[in-house]
């Protein structure tokens, strides 16, 4: 990743880098040239100085020579003059020869300097001409220099030569100096020109660099601006909610404008996301989502592996506003993608979609699918069913639904609150659900279950809006419709049978109930993945009123569900306790010597454990730990009969809604009698209902929980 980035940067700025390199190279070359020219000019200065000195030396030679001659005429001889002449002649000679062919000479400060030979023609010509004059001159001077006395003949010869040639030699040396100065001036002029050109070129190059750099910067700025504009356009147009979530769980600075609408919340940058989510979803989903998001920020977990764990893949959200439109059920889908750099999760890209329409359509489809299944499945089930039982079921259901409707119609006349209303409806619907399950009428059972779930939701709310109030008659109407459809079919079958002069084999109430309970136990144990054997001994039911038998069947239905869901352990748990792998439920009817009938349901499951009920009470949020601690075990067990209370942490089709025991209590009240509970942890639970129609209903809690055998009779109203 880093290498690719570097390569990209180099490609982007290669032009600029080349220009800067060229600029530096060019300036370095010019600097080198300057150094070279300066050193040449130094040498030229030496040449000019020495050429000037030659002029002076030629005149001093002549002057000293003439002084010696004047002294000689007066008969004097000064060896200092001879020594000076020697020095002057040697210096002039060495310098002139150095001009001719280069070499070391003494400079003005008596130090040796290197003199380059002259190279241009005019100077060479002057030097050559001077040498031509100087050579004979030098020969004539040599005897004068070397003589210790005055030799008039050689002195005169030298003096005569000097008189003839001195001026010419001076002129030649002057020419040399002038020529050298001219050469130097020309060189300096060239240098200036080169420097000027170099400066101009350098400025041009620099200008080019600056121009290109600015152009590139502007282009880059433009691209950034364009990218930002495009991002803003995308964020303003996109239907989905898009935003980045940082590890502190704050919403990033850029997010799509549809976010406010989707989340129904004013979103701004850098606000914490979790409180917004908390207001939207249930507490359970929120806690799952919190875990899931922290899991995503963990660098070690693979995103694909935990994708299916996303609790917000399709979640029902609750409106924070109270108007009716907003309170219609909404579903959102949150998707999380990790933004990773250097193997570290920097952000989560969150995509939120409103999937209400899809979900509603899917539900609608499912409903339609269910309806089409009803017809075929129903016909088969209805043809198989015992007609008497079926008629009884329809009668009971119609009575139940009418009672429910009466409850709705009188809702405002009662002092009851919504919670109470929902509980009353719940009992009726739960009873219908149980009976339809026992009859094998799964479509009705499923619909009743849906109704129950809706009631559970309503039960949690303190205030119902208009649509929530309306939802009850709407669901009731749908259930009435279903029942009326069955009635039509059942009547048609009945007519057909009558016209064909055949009657269905009349089965006894007890065998019909046995058949229903067996079917229910098989279905529930299959749903709960448990192995259950059902023992039935219900012959006495044929001796009680049919209505009572049906009510006892209803009690049996609820207790079978409870036994399988809450009592009987899984095969593995049973094996660990040394129990046989299959659980056993025994439902029996017995007659006492006094003529009273006992209806009992016994299972060999884990028994009723007060500690578990206490834990469930606290978990339900209805009771504090202190309140639970103050209750005795018997009081705790009685809570099982409270509407809406369940020891199951989650509700499903078979149990956990917290209404089964409540329904049993109301059936016990209706029939009249006494309900006794016996239980021993890990051994059994037995409900025994003693039917005594003229006695006030009561519940007797007898428990072997603490190895006690105390019988307590408590009145429950």
């Amino acid at each position, binding site marked *: 990743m880093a290498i690719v980035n570097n390569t990209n940067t180099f490609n982007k700025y290669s032009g600029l880098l080349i220009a800067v390199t060229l600029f530096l190279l060019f300036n370095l070359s010019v600097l080198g040239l300057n150094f070279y020219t300066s050193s040449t000019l130094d040498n030229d200065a030496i040449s000019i100085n020495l050429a000037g000195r030659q002029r002076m030396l030629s005149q001093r030679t002549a002057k000293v020579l003439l002084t010696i001659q004047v002294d000689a005429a007066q008969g004097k001889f000064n060896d200092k003059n001879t020594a000076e002449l020697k020095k002057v002649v040697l210096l002039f000679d060495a310098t002139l020869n150095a001009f001719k062919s280069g070499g070391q000479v003494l400079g003005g400060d008596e130090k040796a300097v290197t003199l380059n030979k002259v190279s241009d023609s005019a100077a060479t010509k002057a030097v050559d001409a001077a040498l031509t004059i100087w050579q004979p001159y030098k020969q004539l001077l040599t005897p004068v220099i070397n003589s210790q006395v005055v030799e008039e003949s050689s002195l005169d010869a030298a003096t005569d030569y000097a008189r003839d040639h001195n001026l010419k030699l001076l002129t030649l040396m002057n020419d040399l100096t002038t020529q050298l100065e001219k050469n130097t001036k020309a060189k300096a002029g060239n240098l200036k020109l080169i420097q000027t050109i170099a400066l101009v070129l350098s400025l041009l190059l620099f200008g080019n660099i600056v121009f290109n750099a600015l152009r590139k910067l502007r282009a880059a700025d433009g691209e950034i601006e364009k990218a930002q504009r495009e991002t803003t356009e995308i964020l303003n147009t996109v239907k989905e909610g898009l935003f980045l979530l940082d590890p502190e769980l704050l919403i990033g600075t850029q997010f799509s404008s549809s976010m406010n609408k989707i989340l129904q919340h004013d979103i701004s940058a850098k606000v914490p996301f979790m409180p917004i989510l908390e207001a939207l979803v249930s507490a359970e989903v929120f806690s799952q989502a919190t875990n899931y998001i922290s899991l995503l920020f963990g660098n070690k977990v693979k995103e694909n592996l935990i994708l299916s764990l996303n609790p917000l893949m399709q979640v029902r959200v609750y409106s924070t506003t109270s108007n009716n439109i907003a309170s219609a059920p909404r579903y959102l889908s949150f998707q999380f993608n990790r933004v990773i750099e250097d193997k570290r999760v920097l952000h989560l890209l969150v995509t939120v979609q409103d999937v209400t329409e899809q979900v509603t359509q899917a539900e609608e489809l499912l409903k339609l699918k269910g309806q089409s299944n009803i017809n075929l499945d129903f016909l088969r089930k209805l043809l198989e069913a015992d007609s008497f039982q079926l008629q009884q079921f329809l009668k009971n259901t119609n009575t139940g639904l009418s009672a429910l*409707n009466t409850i709705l119609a009188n*809702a405002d006349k009662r002092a009851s609150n919504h919670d109470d209303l929902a509980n009353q409806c719940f009992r009726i619907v739960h009873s219908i659900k149980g009976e339809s399950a026992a009859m094998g009428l799964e479509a009705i059972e499923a619909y009743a279950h849906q109704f129950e779930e809706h009631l559970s939701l309503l039960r949690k709310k303190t205030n119902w809006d*208009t*649509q929530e109030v*309306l939802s009850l*008659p*709407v669901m009731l109407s749908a259930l009435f*419709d279903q029942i009326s459809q069955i009635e039509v079919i059942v009547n048609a079958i009945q007519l057909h049978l009558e016209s064909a002069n055949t009657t269905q084999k009349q089965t006894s109430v007890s065998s019909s109930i046995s058949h229903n309970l067996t079917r229910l136990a098989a279905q529930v144990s299959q749903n709960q993945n448990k192995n259950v054997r059902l023992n039935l001994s219900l012959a006495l039911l044929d001796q009680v009123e049919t209505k009572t038998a049906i009510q006892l069947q209803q009690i049996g239905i609820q207790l079978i569900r409870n036994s399988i869901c809450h009592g009987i352990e899984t095969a593995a748990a049973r094996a660990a306790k040394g129990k046989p792998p299959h659980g056993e439920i025994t439902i029996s009817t017995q007659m006492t010597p006094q003529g009273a009938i006992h209806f009992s349901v016994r299972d060999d499951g884990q028994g009723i454990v007060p500690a578990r009920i206490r834990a469930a009470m606290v978990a339900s949020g209805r009771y504090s730990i202190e309140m639970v601690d103050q209750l005795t075990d018997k009081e705790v067990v009685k809570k099982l009969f409270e509407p809406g209370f369940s020891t199951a942490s989650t509700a499903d089709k078979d149990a956990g809604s917290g209404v089964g025991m409540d329904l049993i209590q109301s059936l016990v009240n209706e029939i009249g009698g006494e309900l006794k509970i016996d239980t021993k942890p890990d051994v059994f639970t037995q409900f025994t209902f003693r039917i005594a129609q003229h006695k006030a209903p009561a519940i007797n809690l007898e428990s072997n929980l603490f190895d006690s055998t105390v019988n307590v009779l408590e009145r429950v109203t």
Partner: protein
Amino acid sequence: MSDLSEKDIDVFIEAVGDYFKKTTQEAASVGVAYLARNAFPMNDFTGMIKVSADYDGILYFSAPSAMLRHLLTVMKETNQSDENLLDAVGEIANTISGNARKYFGENMVISIPEKVAGLPSSFNQQARYYAYVIIIKWKHYSASLIVDISRKR
């Protein structure tokens, strides 16, 4: 598509609620909602709307005369003849029909509202197996909104 949903029914209720709020500054609220067969809770004056197209049936808004009189008083209408009371119930029915037209569009063809004093003649023919009855409360009065409309399958 299945039957009328609670959202569909709420459209009629909102119309009544809005009418009372606009004319009297006091909103009407839903008392109870239940189902009725052959026993509609009819009052003294009733506005009726017949619907057709994808739907079939009649919607009734039935109010007691005392409620309508009080309504006229609040509206500063001194003429409280039966005719005026009928007009008041008709206006409410009109409001309901306007809202329903807006919500259901061309799927629901709505007839011109009719108004009757006493029991309506079409009363015996029910479109639904069970009609929806919504008791609407305003001050201490109760009016009935009866939605006997079914969707054609």
